[in-house]
């Protein structure tokens, strides 16, 4: 049984705004990247799973329980890191996380014990006794992660966990998410609009756009090699493309690069010679891989419909 099941899940705000459009998907254990532009419906989807929002139509279940009917039971086993700031400034991390553990149903002593453990896990030490109001953004994100973990959830829903962090903070948070998901075996859904982050931590990708499922597949399938050679030159890309076309190769210009479809490796020499003949400054010659960005550039609505069906 999948951990999360959504069937024709639809959420409308008013008459015109459709946040989720008949979304149908299954989530199996792993670290799942939920990727989409801002406004694609990521947060709405997570909030419906938590029972924070009611779906307009369709159904969803988490851990086999219906989201509209069994909210409290589901939430005992789910940890949630909201996108925005959500911490009381006047409490210490220890007091707040202990309180949240009890709100998830842990007995008092167990909650205190686990709070100490998860705060150490996320890397908060002496500062955990000071009021949260004085924390940096990075420390606040760690407290938010700690409160999502304190009750040992079976499912972790993280909404933009690197929101507002500097590059070093992002690296640390992503490492923490990866560790939590991979080593401790908690299925984690990471919603993000940054494909690079998803690529680094996730094993499976769910791409949504305008409330519809665009693609659902293991990350590896998105980053396979393609039969395209990228030839990057300092200038003269147009001339190079024309020359390669004369030689009977399918070539097109993409910025400073010329993309050439190559079926066998002997063609590499032809490309190299063409660059030399034209006297161009060659910057890079590389075999192109699929990039996650291509998802949103190339996929058409018909593909999305096929995937969702």
């Amino acid at each position: 049984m999948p951990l999360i099941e959504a069937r024709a899940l639809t959420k409308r705000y008013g008459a015109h705004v459709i946040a989720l459009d008949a979304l149908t998907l299954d989530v199996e254990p792993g670290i799942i990247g939920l990727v989409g532009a801002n406004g694609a419906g990521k947060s709405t989807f997570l909030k419906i799973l938590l029972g924070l929002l009611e779906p307009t139509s369709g159904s969803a279940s988490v851990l086999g329980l219906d989201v509209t009917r069994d909210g409290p039971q589901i939430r005992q086993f789910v940890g949630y890191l909201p996108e925005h700031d959500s911490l009381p400034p006047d409490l210490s991390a220890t007091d707040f996380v202990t309180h949240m553990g009890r709100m998830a149903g842990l007995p008092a002593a167990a909650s205190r014990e686990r709070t100490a453990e998860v705060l150490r896990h996320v890397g908060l030490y002496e500062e955990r006794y000071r009021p949260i109001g004085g924390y940096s953004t990075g420390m606040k994100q760690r407290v938010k992660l700690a409160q999502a973990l304190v009750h040992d959830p079976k499912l972790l829903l993280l909404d933009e966990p690197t929101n507002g962090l500097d590059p070093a903070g992002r690296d640390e948070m992503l490492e923490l998410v990866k560790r939590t998901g991979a080593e401790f075996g908690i299925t984690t859904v990471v919603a993000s609009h940054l494909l690079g982050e998803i690529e680094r931590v996730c094993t499976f990708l769910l791409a949504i756009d305008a409330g519809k499922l665009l693609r659902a597949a293991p990350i590896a399938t998105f980053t396979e090699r393609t039969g395209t050679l990228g030839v990057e030159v300092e200038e003269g890309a147009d001339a190079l493309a024309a020359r390669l076309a004369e030689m009977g190769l399918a070539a097109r210009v993409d910025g400073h690069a010329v993309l050439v479809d190559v079926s066998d490796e002997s063609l590499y020499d032809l490309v190299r010679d063409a660059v030399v003949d034209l006297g161009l400054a060659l910057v890079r010659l590389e075999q192109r891989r699929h990039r996650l960005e291509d998802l949103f550039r190339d996929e058409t609505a018909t593909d999305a419909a096929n995937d969702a069906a």
Partner: protein
Amino acid sequence: MTPREPAVGTRQSATGAIYDLGYRGYDGPRLGRSAAVSTLFWWSLRAAYALKRSGRAKIVPWGLAALLLAPAGVSVAVAALAPSAPSPFSYDNFLWNTQTLLAIFVAAQAPELVSSDQRNHVLSLYFSHALERTDYALAKLGALAAAVFGLALAPMLVLFIGRILLAADVVKAFGNEIDRLPEVVGTPLIYAIPLAALSLAIAAYTPRRAYATGAIIAVFIVGAAIAGILGEEISSGPFQHASQLVNPVVPLDGTRTLLFGGFIADSPVEGTGFPLWVFGIEWLSITIVGTAVVLWRYQRVAA
């Protein structure tokens, strides 16, 4: 669920190598919704009294408690020193005469319980835990009512114990006073419930604490002022005394009179000449409408 083996290893961090016991699973009991609700109730009750909070946060609740206990203590002391002098306070009029302190308490502490959760978006964390929106609203309401009840009960108990201990025959006095225990406990309850419902209904609507406090005080001041002005404007006719129903604290004394009897001097209840059940109905209406408004608000507030 199968228990996970703890992953043990060392990890580098900014503070050096930390011996890391790793993440451990939890296989103990999960107490569910009722435990979450009771946790929130006690947490909020402690917040209302500012227990485990900074000294500054304690000023209002503890100061008001001192101001409430002082007249009760003085009243007992006077009775001890001059047994023949008429006591200024008894069970029937004590809370009526100190009602302003209770109003200040709810004005200050109702926002303490709910405004900060909204302003800091802590609601989205509460609502993603093992309780429903309705549970949150009722736990907060119950905690505030309990806090007002405790605050109002304390001086009543001082009067109660004072009257027993100061009597010539303590055993006989105990017998007499114990009969009035329902009034000693019931009167604070009559004051606490609608005060909590009314003030929380207002506080739930604004994340800004100062606005909420101002609005609650305004309801009590404006209510009393309108009642006073209308009382002067309409000096005769069938609506002559109806203005008193605009004052939100009058039904509190009216309901007390309805249940335990004994009109008191400073209260307008007797002067209106209304049947006492009118005040009982108004008391119920304030409680029900206030509670409904709080519940409605938390069904809709974004989280």
